[in-house]
């Protein structure tokens, strides 16, 4: 499968997100089978926004954008996860430290979310 296009594309997701005011959680779909109608994209789960990759010839800028994009993506994922896991795990008024139950719940929450993301990607791939 020719993946040159995937390697070439560096997604300007962070700039796009800020410029357009889109918040939300971006995951990369790293394996897009041939015949799937869309090109490389990042899916914003909250808004269903599909961003076309921007391709830049400059390697400096491209490397920078890719790195910043990845950092922003990870940062947004952590933010959204903390938001949701807080609601799931922390009941009642916050104390001066977390109980062991609360901190275990937060850690499990993050790991189970990653497991679920893998399941989703596998399911999508099997549907092609």
């Amino acid at each position, binding site marked *: 499968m020719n993946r040159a296009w995937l390697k070439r594309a560096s997604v*300007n997701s*962070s*700039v*796009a*997100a*800020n410029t357009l005011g889109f*918040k939300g959680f971006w995951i990369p779909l790293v394996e897009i089978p041939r015949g799937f*109608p*869309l*090109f490389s994209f990042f899916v914003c789960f909250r808004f269903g926004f*599909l*961003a*076309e990759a*921007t*391709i*830049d*010839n*400059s*390697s*400096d*800028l491209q490397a*920078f*954008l890719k790195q*910043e994009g990845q*950092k*922003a993506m990870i*940062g*947004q*994922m*952590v*933010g959204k*996860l*903390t*938001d949701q*896991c*807080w609601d799931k795990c*922390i009941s*009642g*008024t*916050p*104390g*001066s*430290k*977390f109980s062991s139950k609360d*901190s275990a719940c*937060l*850690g*499990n*929450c*993050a*790991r189970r979310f*990653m*497991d679920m993301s*893998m399941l989703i990607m596998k399911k999508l791939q099997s549907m092609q």
Partner: protein
Amino acid sequence: MDPFGSSAPPSGASSGPSAEAMMEQIKTQLAQAYAKEFLETVGSKCFAKCITKPGTSISGSESSCISRCIDRYIEATGIISRSLFSSPH
């Protein structure tokens, strides 16, 4: 085929002052956006937990609750980012 429309590829120099200035601008924008989102989330969570019955001013217990809430939320962010990147699948 491109059903969603291409964004115009950025023009300009590959390196040099204009690219660096843009990189700085992007970094600043990212930091600002991240800070804004963080503030909104913390504010929302701590308002829900600590200000259950709004009075004519914020009481001492409410303000210490808010302070603890912010500390706990930052701690929760740390726990979650460590869990994501330390435990393998």
